[in-house]
């Protein structure tokens, strides 16, 4: 039963919202201590919400488009009365005092928020190992990292602890754990979803997006959260399509769809990953897609550009954690990676170096953006691997560059502001491999369409 069907059975009272939440609570209670997907859970409140929804349905009242679905939220998105720790000691005691715009919209659609998920500290990581509250286990590949930084949200979906979850994606933080955990993760076009209430990593890259086990869930969540927010200046005023309809009406065909394959994206990836991805691409061709070979010349620029900008914006964003208002001064209690980024950001943004590093990085970013625009001009989507290598084993320590290397294929969408998703493509020795699909800005629907078709082939 996919999420859309589940929503219908709740609305028809074939399944009650209460049964739905209770099922998940059972699983969470049983498995969370091992998986550590959730950092904060409010079962009581969730049950109360579920009962209200059931009552509404019983009374024949209108219910929202997420009615009765159980939803997990990354710990860097403000939800009133939940712990918004960003998995850092810095905000250990910080409770949300307002709802982020996405949360307001989820609540309006009668979604049930069950808890807050684990993540890399302040989303600065790709493994969820840097959480102050301990690492998260990969439910799809036990003993390995779930990826990150939204590792808890991806693991919660993979471990069937909820219907839907939200993550944030700055350089791949939704798509990377989706790939490693074998679920779908979607990063919308920059500006499609409001960031109001999202804790900053790098503001010009950050974007909230959904995780689900099937495309209908992604579409439902996108319908709820996407769209202009007059209280968030970077959101786009735009007539958002109904993703649900695209999902429903997708013909099982890719006829006339042009899929770009970028040579360099394959080159930087492990061979066994490339094999799996090529299998997915073959399927697209079977379904009528036309392949277009593309070449992207700036792949070596992507990581340095991304990280330089990330450091500077993160440095700026963390100045408020000065120890006066939130318990601890960030530099006094944060982990190694967060500290590295703050120090680097402070260094790079100094007056005397700004021209040398930060301004150059911004120029490189325009270059990459224009190049991607050019590549996307002649195709509908670009398909390739989400992550160039498989997730490492928990406990194995990687040096910084090896850690950053996970991100080389995902940062591009953030640098260019384009939509991108990761969906399961196959497995290598039982470890999931994600297929990344990228499209032009505001053509998020094309990704939903392609995923729907691919999903229907399994």
């Amino acid at each position, binding site marked *: 039963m996919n999420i859309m069907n589940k929503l219908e059975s709740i609305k028809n009272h074939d399944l009650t919202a209460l049964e739905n939440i209770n099922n998940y609570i059972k699983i969470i209670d049983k498995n969370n201590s091992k998986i550590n997907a959730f950092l904060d859970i409010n079962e009581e409140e969730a049950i109360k919400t579920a009962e209200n929804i059931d009552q509404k349905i019983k009374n024949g009242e209108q219910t929202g488009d997420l009615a009765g679905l159980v939803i997990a939220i990354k710990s860097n998105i403000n939800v009133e009365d939940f712990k*918004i720790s960003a998995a850092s000691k810095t905000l250990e005691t910080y409770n949300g005092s307002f709802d982020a715009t996405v949360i307001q919209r989820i609540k309006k659609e009668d979604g049930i928020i069950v808890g807050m998920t684990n993540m890399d500290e302040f989303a600065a990581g790709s493994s969820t190992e840097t959480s102050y509250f301990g690492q998260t286990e990969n439910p799809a590949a036990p003993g390995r990292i779930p990826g990150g930084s939204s590792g808890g949200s991806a693991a919660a979906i993979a471990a069937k602890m909820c219907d839907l979850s939200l993550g944030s994606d700055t350089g791949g933080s939704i798509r990377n754990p989706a790939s490693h955990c074998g679920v779908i993760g979607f990063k919308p076009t920059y500006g499609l979803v409001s960031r109001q209430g999202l804790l900053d990593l790098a503001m010009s890259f950050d974007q909230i997006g959904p995780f689900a086990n099937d495309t209908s869930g992604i579409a439902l969540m996108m319908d709820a959260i996407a769209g202009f927010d007059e209280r968030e200046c970077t959101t786009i005023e735009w007539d958002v399509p109904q993703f649900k309809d695209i999902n429903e009406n997708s013909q099982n065909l890719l006829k006339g769809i042009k899929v770009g394959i970028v040579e360099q994206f394959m080159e930087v990836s492990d061979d066994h990953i490339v094999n799996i991805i090529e299998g997915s691409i073959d399927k697209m061709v079977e379904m009528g897609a036309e392949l277009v070979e593309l070449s992207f010349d700036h792949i070596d620029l992507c990581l340095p550009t991304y990280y330089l900008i990330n450091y500077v*914006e993160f440095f700026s964003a963390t100045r408020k954690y000065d120890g*006066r208002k939130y318990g601890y001064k960030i530099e006094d209690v944060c982990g190694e990676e967060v500290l590295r980024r703050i120090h680097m950001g402070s260094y790079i943004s100094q007056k005397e170096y700004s021209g040398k590093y930060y301004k150059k990085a911004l120029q490189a970013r325009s270059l990459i953006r224009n190049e991607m625009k050019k590549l996307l001009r002649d195709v509908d989507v670009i398909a390739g691997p989400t992550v160039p290598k498989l997730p490492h084993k928990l406990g194995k320590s990687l040096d910084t560059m090896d850690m950053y290397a996970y991100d080389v294929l995902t940062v591009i969408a953030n640098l260019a502001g384009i939509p991108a998703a990761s969906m399961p493509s196959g497995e290598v020795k039982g470890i999931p491999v994600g297929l990344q699909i990228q499209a032009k800005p505001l053509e998020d629907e094309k990704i939903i369409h392609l995923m729907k078709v691919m999903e229907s082939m399994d």
Partner: protein
Amino acid sequence: MKCGLEIHVQLETDSKLFCTCHTNYQEASPNTNICFVCLNQPGAKPYPPNQKAMEGAIKIALMLGCKISDDVTYFMRKHYNYPDLSSGYQRTSIPIGFEGDLNGIRIREVHIEEDPGQYKPDMGIVDFNRSGIPLIEIVTEPDINSPEEARIFLRELIRVLEYSGNARGEGTMRADVNISLEGGKRVEIKNINSIKGAYKALKFEMVRQKNLIKRGVTIKQETRAFLESQMITVSMRLKEEAEDYRYIPDPDLPPMMAQEDQIQIIKEKMPEPPHIKTQRFVEQYGIEKEHAKVITSELELADAFEEVAKKVNPAFAALWMRDELKRVIYYNKMTFAQSGITSSQITELLKMIENKEITTKAAQRIIEKMPNNPSTPKQIAEELGLIGVIEDEGIIKAVKQVIDDNPKAVDDYKNGKKESLNYLVGQVMRLTRGKAEPAKTVELLKQYI
């Protein structure tokens, strides 16, 4: 000496620059006009910039003769660490206007900023009511040559700001001044909160530096703080310790484009700046510059003058409005606008004098009754029985009687005591119940003594 100013004044808006909190921070109890945005809580993003503030800044820039940037405008983050700064950075726009001029002092740029909160160490609190209130910052070139010039400039600037209707007054002013003397480096003085403070700080600093130079000490580039209570400046830091604000464009606020038609609308609605109005009054109405300055001190007063001058001799009107009208509103501690006096009331009053329906003296008494009085001057005159000018015979009669009744005063006057004449004039007025023309009375007194 050369001196440049950076002046911050709050813009007059109902809500803050990036949120909808009210701006009446002084009336509200500490930390009541706050929300997650102006507290910069984790995850809070600024709302779109307050349009009234943006337009006010453009208007003020235009009134200062600035060019308006036709390129994109955006906000920068200026990072520093202080308890009153809830985000750890202050949002400050790139110049909205540049290359302006106010009475020969060049304006380098005009931009907009957000006010931080208020750290109150004595109470051990930070009050964030002020956090996020829009400020306008006006930066001059170092074209000012003395503390006196600085004072004149600042007064004139406050007048422009008041005219704009978009800024709060001197009470919200904070200024940094920089000063360099021949042969010395530039010294910046912070923490100045009034025009008087700017004057005193410059005066002190000028003397201090002159004395150092005299002793052969070189003036180093440094930042000093003005201590208002003692009217002195003290060193804060030398150039080597200069703060690095690590400016970056604010990623939460996308660049904005000032629209040509929006600027056009502001230009059409914007009042003529006072310094230009003063000049025009001198040229157009042939009145004295000093009178023009006083009359243009308040936009409503200047507008009233122009109305009155359509029907009454402008020089006569200027004299009256500058002396008598100003005296009355000053005495009542109100502005002209608050006095409720209309241009038609003034016109009527002055016409009555011109037509010799009342005496100057009587008019002075009538105008004293005019603030917030719906009666016409004529009605007031009738109520007080002041209608009518006594013809010459009447005055002569009174003059003769006063001379007879006051031999000592007459003697004193003859012996060179000029003040005695005033006394005698007053006596004539008393006898005529103020209906005699003072000038005529003086003339006749002199004639008959």
